[in-house]
């Protein structure tokens, strides 16, 4: 008996070693491209193009961040403008989305609505997310052209609010459904109106859900490229993704500036994603899987 036990133990240790070894290798595969992006932004061009690749910059340089000509953080570079534009567009579209979407989500989660028999309405809302953006983009471009909104942040706010709404509605619906109805019912028995019960009781309870949803929406908006490229064409209006794409054509071989810009653009997202890990599943799957 004891022999069998030690045999099993040895097997378990072997299995664990194999498992952690594989996971270590996978993490390396996941993190290496990011590491490579960051160190390339600190390398001199001569080092990058020299025959031997170095896994750590031998001449550490901040040229691509601070240099007045090549640095992305210098006032000559449009990068900070892109960053600022991305912040404005992400912030306001997320705010609109959350306000409008939470109301709809609350309605879908709490009321019996004839239109929503068998979740039909919810699915209609979901199909808007499934629509490939490229199908909408050409008419959207022509419509914005007619409205004179091409190359304005208004165009981006309208488009992003619309396209992130289904996501916000589905995610918030899942959060609202987790709260027992008895809570607001008892508040209503105490004489509060439904809206007052919503503000006083429900909203504080879905607080974490609201935060998670808004962070996701911000990330989605922050990363969006196709709409931004079609609808914005001057450097002072561009958000980060089309801005960085412009860098590719402008500085074809200036990998230092390009990776510096990419690094700075990625930092907020990586930080944000750390805070929403727990709610990730609900967000990415539109509440289809309990997270």
């Amino acid at each position, binding site marked *: 008996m004891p022999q069998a036990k030690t045999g099993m133990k040895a097997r378990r240790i072997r299995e664990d070693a194999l498992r952690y070894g594989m*996971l270590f290798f996978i993490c390396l595969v996941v993190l290496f491209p990011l590491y490579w992006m960051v160190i390339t932004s600190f390398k001199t061009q001569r080092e990058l193009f020299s025959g031997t690749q170095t896994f750590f910059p031998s001449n550490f340089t901040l040229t691509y961040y601070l240099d007045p000509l090549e640095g992305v953080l210098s006032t000559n570079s449009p990068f900070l403008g892109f960053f600022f534009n991305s912040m404005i567009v992400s912030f306001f579209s997320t705010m609109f989305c959350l306000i409008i979407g939470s109301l*709809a989500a*609350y309605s879908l989660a709490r009321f019996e609505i004839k239109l929503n028999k068998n979740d039909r309405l919810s699915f209609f809302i979901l199909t808007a997310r*499934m*629509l490939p953006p490229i*199908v*909408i983009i050409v008419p959207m471009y022509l419509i914005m052209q007619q409205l004179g909104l091409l190359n304005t942040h208004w165009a981006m706010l309208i488009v992003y609010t619309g396209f992130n709404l289904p996501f916000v509605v589905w995610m918030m619906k899942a959060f609202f459904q987790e709260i027992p109805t008895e809570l607001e019912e008892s508040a209503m028995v105490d004489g509060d109106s439904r*809206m007052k019960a919503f503000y006083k009781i429900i909203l504080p309870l879905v607080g974490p859900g609201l935060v998670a949803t808004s962070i996701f929406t911000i990330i989605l908006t922050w990363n969006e490229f196709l709409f931004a490229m079609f609808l914005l064409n001057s450097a002072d209006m561009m958000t980060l993704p089309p801005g*960085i794409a412009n860098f590719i054509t402008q500085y074809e071989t200036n990998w230092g500036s390009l990776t510096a810009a*990419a690094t700075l653009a990625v930092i907020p997202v990586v930080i944000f994603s750390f805070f929403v890990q727990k709610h990730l599943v609900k967000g990415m799957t539109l509440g289809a899987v309990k997270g």
Partner: protein
Amino acid sequence: MSKESLADTSTSSSVQLRNNKNKRFFKKNLLPYWLLLPTISILAVLTIFPLAYSIYVSFQRFNTFGEAVGFHGVNNYADVISSITFWNSLGITLLYTAGVVAVEMVLGLALALMVSKENKVMSYLRWILIIPMMLSPLVVGIVFRLMLNADFGIVNYMLTSIGLPAVDFLGNSLTAFLSIMLVDVWQWTPMCFLIALAGLQSLPQDPYEAARLDGASKWQILRDITIPLLKPVLIVALVIRTMDALRMFDQVFVLTQGGPGRATEVISFLMYRAAMRFSDFGFATAGLFMVLVVTILLSLIMIKLLNRTEKTGGY
């Protein structure tokens, strides 16, 4: 849903009375509709209206300046159907989608099984494993373009340093196609992983104990218990990934611009090119409609699949 929980609470008669009152209140009140109105109207304006508008555009003739110059009938559709580039793109897109989704599903499930154990190390590992999907696909494209560069890319450097020949990854039809697939797998396996993991963590424990008592092997448990129980969740991952892969654009834009030749010209990129470079909005919208039909058909099939497993499977 509210209906069930209302029914659950109706134990005493007073509660019953109150709930009846509430129910009537819910039915008569227009509040739920007012709450839905902004969302529905925005979605209608931003999806149905542009769709209708693009049907109109798809029947128009456009000159080289991108101005509509008159009715063109179904000629745009005929142009699309008879264009070899369209069928080429559709084929590439479908092949690409099938390839990446299959690989991502298998890898994602395997990864989820590896980290499903609950401990501190695993929770950090999980965070690392999901980072790729949070990044902008554009940035990911740039980083891989740097790493896969034929002359100074790190991948070729590693290959040559262990004695293998250097590969012109993005300059060769087959390797360019495989490269964009590789980038997709790197970025989106985490999505499948995450969904599978969530499914794994919510599985009931009883069947596992029974199987363990029966002395089932690990492989048997995986094949006969885990995968069947996980099927509905895996279909969710399948649907989401398929939809996203069909519309993939950013990586191709950064990495290959559809080239070399037309080897990686996925459908979104072809239509982008038709619309933006050649101002042929009629051709682009007509082509996009046909893509939309394909997408809708595929998603209907998959949603049917999903509904069926939801009814039979006990998720």
